[in-house]
């Protein structure tokens, strides 16, 4: 038996023993997701147990080094971990912006002290992070951001506002892009970390078309941020920000999610499928979904060993989110009038309709599809003037 096969057996046995049956059910609602953090309310004991057990082994962040709370898995081992998780339909023990976005940025740009401190908290699910990038006047054109940090010797005083800050009202800390030099566009931004309980921080939830309110306007009124809470160099935060965006886009792309939820033809068929044209659309969709599943696997395999084009996460984000929107269009069509129900018990509180509406944000959040296509044109295809 190869080492990897032995490793697979070990993981399989561990999961068998430690993953509670409740945690092998598909995620239905937002509150099935474990986000961690100071104020997190576990939905049930199983959710808490699953997090505790995984965190103890470093399995919340399997490929981070052990020194920072991970399990130190190699790319091949991490792939085995994903495959075994997918095999039994296990939910991720912990989902967070810390894992997906800040963590990778800290691993690359953080000081040793920052890594030990912040990464450990993220891995254990102790601190929940939010992302302070977008501003009312700076969406796609993020680099035009205006939130300003005034240098006060050993700290900055931050003033301004962010918008579309997901879970700002539930997060403990924020990673935030702040202008620290008004004369320099790209090289005048710093990447700061601060506590959302700091004096002068306030949030105001925004209601989405799905009827949920997962994001906020975030205001900074003379917020004091100590100088050691900067990641990377002063005025070089744009490099950190872009690197982090690559990871955010990789996450939103859904790569590595396994086959279980990708295809929908069989699911809709069980509910009765009589329209031949819909069946045909579903079949074409399933082809694209299964092909994209292979793409996700290839992308992750390649990116872990440095074989992927550095701008490839943009392609993945584009393709993955457009596919997901199509998936929900077909799910709505397949569900017919039943999928219109918004509050009934039968519809699980309108979960399909709300899910459908939520997917429309996929091709906006983290950089729009049009911006992804711009980036592909410029960085991968090297087209002129892009």
């Amino acid at each position, binding site marked *: 038996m190869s080492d990897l096969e032995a490793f697979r057996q070990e993981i399989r046995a561990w999961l068998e023993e430690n993953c509670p049956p409740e945690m092998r059910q598909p995620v239905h609602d937002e509150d099935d997701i474990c986000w961690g953090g100071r104020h997190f309310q576990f939905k049930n004991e199983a959710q808490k147990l699953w997090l505790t057990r995984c965190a103890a082994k470093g399995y919340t962040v399997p490929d981070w080094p052990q020194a920072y709370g991970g399990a130190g898995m190699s790319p091949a081992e991490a792939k085995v971990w994903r495959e075994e998780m997918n095999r039994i339909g296990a939910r991720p023990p912990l989902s967070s912006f810390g894992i997906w976005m800040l963590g990778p940025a800290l691993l690359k740009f953080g000081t040793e002290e920052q890594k030990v401190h912040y990464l450990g908290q993220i891995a254990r699910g102790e601190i929940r992070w939010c992302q302070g990038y977008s501003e009312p006047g700076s969406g796609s054109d993020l680099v035009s951001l205006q939130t300003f940090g005034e240098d006060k010797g050993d700290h900055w005083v931050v003033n301004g506002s962010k918008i579309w800050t997901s879970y700002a009202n539930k997060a403990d800390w924020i990673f935030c892009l702040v202008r620290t030099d008004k004369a320099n566009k790209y090289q005048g931004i710093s990447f700061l970390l601060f506590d959302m309980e700091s004096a002068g921080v306030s949030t105001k939830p925004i209601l989405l078309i799905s009827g949920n309110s997962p994001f906020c306007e975030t205001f900074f009124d003379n917020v004091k941020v100590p100088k050691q809470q900067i990641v990377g160099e002063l005025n070089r935060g744009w490099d950190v920000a872009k690197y982090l965006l690559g990871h955010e886009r990789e996450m939103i792309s859904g790569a590595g999610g396994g086959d279980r939820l990708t295809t929908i033809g069989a699911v809709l068929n069980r509910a009765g499928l009589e329209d031949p044209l819909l069946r045909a659309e579903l079949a074409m969709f399933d082809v694209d979904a299964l*092909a994209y599943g*292979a793409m996700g696997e290839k992308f992750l395999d390649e990116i872990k060993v440095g074989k992927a084009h550095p701008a490839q996460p943009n392609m993945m984000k*584009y393709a993955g989110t457009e596919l997901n929107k199509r998936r929900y269009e077909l799910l709505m069509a397949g569900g017919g009038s039943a999928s219109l129900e918004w509050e009934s018990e039968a519809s699980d509180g309108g979960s399909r309709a709300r899910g459908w509406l939520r997917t429309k944000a996929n091709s906006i959040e983290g950089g729009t599809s049009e911006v992804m296509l711009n980036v592909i044109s410029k960085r991968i295809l090297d087209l*002129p*003037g892009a």
Partner: protein
Amino acid sequence: MPLYHTEDQAMLADTARQFMADEGAIAKQLRHFRDIGCKDGFGHGLWKQFAELGFTGILVSEADGGLGMGHVEAGIVLEEIGRNLTPSPFLTSAVMAASALADASAELKGRYLPGLLSGDSVFALAIDEGKKHRPERIATRAVRSGNGFSLSGTKDFVVHGSSADMLVVAARTAGADDDAEGITLFAVPRDAAGLSQDAVRLVDSSMATHLRLDNVQLDADAVIGEVDGGREVLSRVLNAGRVGAAAESVGVAQGSFDMTTTYLKQRKQFGKLIGEFQALQHRAAHLYSEIEIARAATIKAQQLLDAGSDKAELMVSVAKAKAGKAASLAVREGVQMHGGIGMTDEYDIGLYMKRDRALAEFMGDMFYHADRVAKLSGY
């Protein structure tokens, strides 16, 4: 196994890319043999070179004198064939017929494999009956006769049929036309009495035939595999052909795409390079993404086939459908973005469009395979 080429495979890819760009180039092969009206539609000289490089033995086991490699390696060669539109009997002979012969008796292997390995022989497949690929239904009959069989029926879209030294014919030895079982594969020599072919040139300048079997008498040793048990061999041959055609389509898509992006960086209108127009950039970027995904699906299918996985069938159809979709988009965008000159015979971009159309039909188009994906998924 990671979804990228191993070091050995990457080396093979380098060799194949260089070789095909030099020797298999459009001007040297496709245009040359088209313009002289070649009856084969491909060059035997290049086929010999394929053999010298070992390409013709990629899917032949080492015990039988080949390289004993897999579909990933065959796909590497096919992607380069596609990129250069190289006319070649590689897919029918070294991929599909070789997959059939892998199961054949020592007698049949001895008769046909040496010619394949040396590049002296070409093989073809006679499977389709009618205009569309539908191998679930086989009406060609083989009835017991003497110490062998007598075959009668008609076959269509027999690619390289009139150049082939041997044709793998799928015929029915039992059951009704639509039965899954009762199929037998036969190795039919080109000069068998009662075999006639009507050769036709296709849109991409390749040659195919309409084939007639009129009481063609064969000895029992012409049977490949088991009598009545040919469905399994056939399905292996089809998988090989489909995933191979997918790989070739990825090459066609990539070749067409590269030519198009190069053009976007050269052609000026309105005082700008046309590649500066966002309307074209976004379409090119979308196309890039589709080709990448098609390539991933194809290598996944190749790996699953090589590993003997039970998920291979599904993924092969995914790959054939997705690669067909991507390549079709690539050639349509390619001609469109070239403007008027894309319509001229002088420019190669139109040749990609023609090759794509022929490949799309070969071994089932995207509609056939999407339907198959649905059926295999239970709807």
